[in-house]
């Protein structure tokens, strides 16, 4: 029942000139308009927590292919396993069955090639903003000078260059999350995993963050897997929206999002946006009702057995 065909929509060629003109790898990657790294291939993924009677199926037989440079949003109600899928791609949770590959290599443990932004900014409080963003490059063996140069560039991109020497605790939640995004990107990950990164922010800040993220993505074209429970957010950000359902977590629908590019907030009032949103809601509603009926049938059967 899951529609696994890769998104029918190909990436638009980069029509506008890239404003970000330094000579590091990710820009080269984008220079020809199409990203070549960050192909995610999830086959038959199941994740079961616990053993025996207490086991719980968080994810059941999910297959998902994400081409390089795509922005995919995973939506679904809480408990549908969307964060678990993300944790599995990151390498924090091992698949019980199935495989996850990134650019042909099987994911076994966390690595710098799969950057992650968490719901909480999770910055190192003992490091300055600059120190936080420079951490990844330093760990990958770059010199201190080079790491700091990169960190400054990425801070520039999220608009926080003036806060390089501040400590995270002195920044607002939104600013901290921007640092976290810069930190993940400064490592030039093949894929960027985002676990409800704007969930804890107020509505105004969230919209600003969404626009900022889209702008970054236009420039870098990193593959993004973005988990959210907010359908508006998913449609606004994604090239593609994958809807998951709970009990057990599986894919309900896989929708390409054909809205104007580059996205801007005007998209939110386009009829196309409203239609997509309606489709999503209907899908989710139908599925929830179905699941509910199945559950009640199952429980009535159990009662009859008793």
């Amino acid at each position, binding site marked *: 029942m899951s529609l696994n065909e890769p998104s029918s929509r190909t990436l638009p060629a980069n029509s506008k000139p890239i404003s970000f003109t330094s000579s590091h790898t990710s820009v080269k990657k984008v220079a020809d308009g199409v990203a070549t790294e960050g192909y995610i291939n999830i086959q038959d993924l199941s994740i079961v927590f616990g053993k025996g009677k207490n086991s719980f199926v968080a994810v059941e037989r999910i297959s998902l292919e994400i081409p390089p440079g795509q922005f995919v949003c995973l939506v679904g109600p809480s408990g549908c396993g969307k964060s678990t899928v993300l944790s599995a791609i990151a390498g*924090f949770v091992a698949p019980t069955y199935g495989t996850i590959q990134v650019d042909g290599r099987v994911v076994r*443990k*966390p690595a*710098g090639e799969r950057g*992650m932004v968490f719901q909480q900014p*999770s910055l190192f409080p003992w490091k300055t903003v600059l120190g936080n963003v420079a951490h990844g490059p330093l*760990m990958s063996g770059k010199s201190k000078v080079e790491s700091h140069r990169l960190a400054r560039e990425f801070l520039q991109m999220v608009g926080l260059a003036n806060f390089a020497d501040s400590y995270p*605790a002195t920044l607002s939640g939104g600013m901290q999350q921007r640092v*976290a995004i810069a930190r993940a990107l400064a*490592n030039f990950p093949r894929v960027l995993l985002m676990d409800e990164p704007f969930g804890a922010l107020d509505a105004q800040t969230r919209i600003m963050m969404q626009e900022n993220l889209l702008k970054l993505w236009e420039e870098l074209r990193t593959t993004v897997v973005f988990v959210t429970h907010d359908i508006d957010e998913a449609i606004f950000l994604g090239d593609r929206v994958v809807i998951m359902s709970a009990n057990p977590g599986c894919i309900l629908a896989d929708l390409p999002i054909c809205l104007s590019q580059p996205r801007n907030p005007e998209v939110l009032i386009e009829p196309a946006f409203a239609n997509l949103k309606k489709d999503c809601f209907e899908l989710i509603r139908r599925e929830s009702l179905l699941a509910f009926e199945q559950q009640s049938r199952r429980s009535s059967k159990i009662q009859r057995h008793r």
Partner: protein
Amino acid sequence: MTKQQALNRLVLGLSIPLFLGLWEAVSRSGSVNSVLFPPPTLVAVALYNWAIDGSLLIDIMMSISRVVVGFVTGAAAGIVLGILTGRYQILSNLLSPVFQLLRPIPPIAFVPIVILWFGLSELGKWFLVFWGVFFTVWIAAHLGVQRVDKTLIRAAQCLGTPEKRMLQEVLLPGALPYIFVGLRTSISISFYTLVAAELAGTFSGIAYRIEIAQQNLQVGQTIGGLIVLGIISAVADKVFGLLSHRVVWWG
């Protein structure tokens, strides 16, 4: 400044003078035995006499050196072992049961056996202070390492931090706020064990002098010794507080 604030300040400034004045008045009123409860002026005279014959400085230096040696060695051992047991389950399994068994024994209870083992030497004093400090710092470091925010560890992994650098990059700084709380608690513990160590038998030190003065019924010096001990301990705590704000500025 409002009237209320001015009054609050005045009361703060009067706190200690009022206390001393009351003490002086009670001592001199004849309602208590002024030999056993000398007024602060006589305590000050006793302190002055103790200072000018040079023995006050020696006593202070001896006591401080005992605290410093015991504290530094105890803290260092506590931090190192705490990080190791906090990080490696196998080491924790090996050492934690033993430490948890020894930790609840009050350090003062070791005085008799310490005298048997080390006599009246400095080594015995160092050992007692070490013993008092070690377990508190160990448990703080152990729990500190284990309580480092899991998301921070995950974030570090996602940034490509190699496993062998995780300790230095995340676990140690993450545990530092806990370790410093343990260290600060240990400062008062180390003075507390110092007193026990010096009462048990030695030839110099503040607590030793307090005991000798008591035996000679020099109550002024006895109380003076208590005040000196209080001041040293308070200064040590203050200095450490400032130091910890510099080292753990984010905590």
